[in-house]
């Protein structure tokens, strides 16, 4: 079953693992700067890099026939397609000739600082806080 990857010694995998840990630290530290675009880049960009490292080095996708890569990418593309098709309805709170009043109201209340998700408030739809928010879990109270 083995081909090129058998040539690697154990040290190769330890090295990859070390890379992964470095990336993990970066993605963890990134958000602490509290810059939103940087958070997105570090969190998701690095997740992509880590996934790539694992898929290529640990799962040896390159050693499998090409169609395996195609099958996996096709699935990913279909998932993007699903997202693209469903998001205009599910992700939006209003669109052409329709609105979701509860979502709009919840968003307005949030923007206005009337509610926050620091505790474990009721559903976003109601936007009404339960009131017994917990200090330990707060962190996001304005």
């Amino acid at each position, binding site marked *: 079953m083995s081909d090129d990857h058998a040539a690697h010694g154990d040290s190769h995998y330890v090295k990859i693992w070390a890379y992964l840990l470095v990336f993990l630290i970066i993605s963890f530290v990134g958000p602490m700067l509290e810059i939103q675009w940087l958070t997105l880049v570090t969190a998701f960009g690095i997740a992509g890099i880590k996934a790539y490292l694992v898929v290529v080095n640990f799962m040896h996708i390159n050693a499998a026939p090409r169609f395996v890569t195609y099958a996996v990418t096709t699935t990913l593309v279909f998932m993007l397609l699903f997202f693209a098709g469903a998001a205009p309805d*599910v992700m939006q709170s209003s669109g052409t000739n329709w609105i979701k009043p509860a979502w709009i109201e919840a968003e307005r209340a949030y923007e206005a600082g009337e509610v926050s*998700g620091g505790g474990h408030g009721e559903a976003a739809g109601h936007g009404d806080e339960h009131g017994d928010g917990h200090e330990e879990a707060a962190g996001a109270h304005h």
Partner: protein
Amino acid sequence: MSRPIATTRSMAGIPTARLAVWWIIASEIAIFGGVLGSYLMHRLAHGIWADYAANTNEWLGLTNTFILLTSSLAAVLAHQAAERGDGKRAANLLYATCAGGLAFLCVKAYEWNYEISHGMTITSNTFWSFYYTAAGIHALHVIAGCILMLFVAQTAKRNEELHRVEIIGVYWHFVDVVWIFLFPLLYIAK
């Protein structure tokens, strides 16, 4: 009962079990894609979800990511050992991987226990519903992987069916990859 000849053929140029595990992974991508896609739609729609997400403990998330990455290393080293025909070492490394999975589940259990006892339950709101559902489906995969791995380790110890070490490894790495995406989605992005 003897195995059918069909299992020994590999016209597609890849051992059957490895081919099968890749197809399983493809369909699993669709399952997680469905959950995470739905989660992402809500996440991007509601500003308040960033606040909810702030309640998750990123230190525990970090620990768990570390545990899974390390267990993946053990799994790939087990594969290497199996490749060299060293079933004993492969089995031991698989046990180590399993221990990683178990540690992961323990951390998860502690974390959930803390959150639930502080009123953040699956019914609190849609964010927490997604949080528990996505992580729960993932945890089920971890459990299934651990159980399968124990069986594989049993046979590998006797230097039998060593090709299975790689198969369970590929599956385990996939579980790892899913967590790599769950980690920023549930813990980091705020």
